[in-house]
């Protein structure tokens, strides 16, 4: 009872990266308040799924294995989680801020009438005293997230409702094996006693899911373009530099919204969080939504014709100039110095 739960997302028999990251975080949180870490896996033909989960520190795995449960559908997954949570009364429940997690978590939170915070960038424990009543709370989950277009960082708490629910984007938390030979307890959920035909109202007719082709998260060098790059064609320079120095191309939300690049390359609060050795920000002004996703990069170069661009504050090298002048020179002098 009152443990920490992580919903584990599955695609093609594999636990999603974000779920492993959340298990890692969940293990640390569980240790801090001396609770257990419990994983929930809902799908079909789950076989030896435990092997993928226990190494990340789970004490218990709740498994719902049934042909009606894969691919993901909102209603049956909600119903199983709500029924489990009513019984187990978790202290905290974490979901990936993915297409699935952002569809599922709000529905669960509404059914349980509990609070939910989307897209958290940090989760820590802290205390709280209610101003009006003077009531004191120990070890509340501080759910920290950028809000209001990234202009503020808000700390959200749920003093009185449980579980304290949060979603977190892929790449925000670090993934770490806790103990590769760890074994825990598996509990099987009796799906047939929970689901009825009303839960199957939505039927999937077709499904085309691509394996993640673009994965800028694992790249040691990222060359990101913003709205200031100017056009889709100008992005070609960034791809060229990336190819030559061995990196990937990223982008700000503004560049993605303008149609210059694919959303899979978006860095920041509503994209991926990256920590490369080198981050080259081209024509990116540096809204907090963006910097939240890259400010832990080891070295940052900012190329911007505005010397006052906010991103320059966190840059190690500031190049004041036009992207289309600077990039070709970087290519030229890279080639010259590596000959």
């Amino acid at each position, binding site marked *: 009872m009152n443990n920490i739960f992580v919903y584990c997302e599955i695609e093609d028999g594999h636990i999603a990266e974000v779920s492993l990251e959340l298990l890692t975080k969940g293990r640390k949180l569980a240790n801090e308040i001396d609770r257990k870490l419990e994983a929930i896996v809902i799908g079909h033909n789950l076989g030896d799924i435990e092997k993928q989960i226990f190494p990340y520190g789970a004490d218990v795995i709740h498994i719902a294995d049934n042909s009606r449960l894969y691919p993901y559908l*909102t209603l049956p997954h909600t119903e199983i989680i709500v029924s489990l949570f009513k019984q187990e009364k978790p202290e905290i429940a974490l979901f990936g801020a993915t297409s699935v997690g952002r569809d599922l978590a709000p529905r669960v939170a509404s059914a349980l009438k509990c609070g939910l915070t989307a897209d958290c960038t940090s989760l820590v424990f802290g205390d709280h005293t209610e101003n009006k009543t003077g009531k004191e709370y120990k070890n509340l989950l501080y759910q920290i997230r950028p809000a209001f277009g990234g202009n503020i960082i808000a700390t959200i708490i749920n003093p009185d409702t449980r579980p304290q629910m949060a979603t977190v984007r892929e790449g925000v938390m670090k993934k770490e094996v806790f103990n590769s030979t760890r074994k825990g307890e598996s509990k099987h959920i009796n799906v047939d006693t929970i689901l009825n035909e009303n839960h199957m109202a939505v039927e999937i007719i077709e499904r085309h899911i691509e394996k993640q082709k673009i994965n800028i998260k694992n790249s040691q060098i990222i060359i990101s373009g913003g709205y200031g790059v100017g056009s889709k064609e100008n992005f070609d320079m960034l791809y060229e530099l990336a190819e030559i120095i061995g990196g990937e191309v990223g982008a700000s939300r503004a560049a993605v919204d303008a149609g210059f690049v694919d959303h899979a390359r978006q860095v920041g609060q509503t994209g991926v969080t990256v920590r490369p050795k080198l981050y080259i920000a081209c024509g990116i002004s540096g809204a907090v939504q963006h910097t939240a996703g890259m400010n832990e990069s080891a070295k940052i170069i900012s190329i911007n014709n505005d010397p006052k661009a906010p991103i320059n504050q966190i840059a190690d090298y500031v190049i004041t100039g036009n992207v289309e002048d600077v990039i070709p020179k970087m290519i030229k002098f890279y080639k010259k110095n590596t000959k």
Partner: protein
Amino acid sequence: MSFKIVVLAKQVPDTRNVGKDAMKADGTVNRSALPAIFNPEDLHALEQALRIKDRISDAEIYILTMGPPRAAEIIREAMYRGADGGYLITDRKFAGSDTLATSYAISLAVKKLQPHLVVAGRQAIDGDTAQVGPQCAEKLNIPQVTYCEEILEIKEDQLIIKRRLERGIEIVKCKTPLLITVHSSAPTCRPRNAKLLMKYKHARTVSELVEETKDYTEMMTNKPYLRIDEWSVADLDANVDFLGLSGSPTKVKKIENVVLARKDSVTLTPEDKDMDFLMKELIDSHVIG
């Protein structure tokens, strides 16, 4: 029987232009200090509803929004683009509502309207939570289909919908009543229609009529479609315990303005000698190469 669609829309502060005075002491947003706009993805949602109306002649579209009295602006905006009318949920008792309390209020209003289909934008640019759509669907006890990109088919009480997911697409089938949320990859809304602009430019809520110097009595009697209904807590028969700050399980503990910590940086020009220096340094320190 007509096909009734309710579009959930929100007037949002334009978060791209946040000034110093935008936050109140309690951590909530001082919306009046910012330009207010029609939430972009809600316009995509309206377009999806209008496309259904293009196909089904007896479809009716009503905008439902919750906010301060001036949020009636977006109802008029939607009427200029083809919506048949709208309802504004407004009451001081709703202030401070989080997504759960908001979806409670909206779901009560939707129940009064009894639509076949509820269409909402995926998320609003002020909070980016994407929670109110699914939470409303749960409170209404109807299925949800999120991230809709296109409605491929609509046949009697059944819709076939293409969803845009992170790494692909899904085509799903579901019967009404149903709530869908519309993704930004769906087409944006058609522009205002000049005839509709003329027809609806005098559409007003009761609170707006009080402010008008001109006498609208005769016009409102002759053209009842100009009336935008306002709904209070009492009109929705809502339980105040589930509304506003007291009905919101999430509390804002702290708000920090973002200040980027300044680093000691090297400032360079695009001149050859600076670029040569930079690339040499990156290579020598093994950052690249």
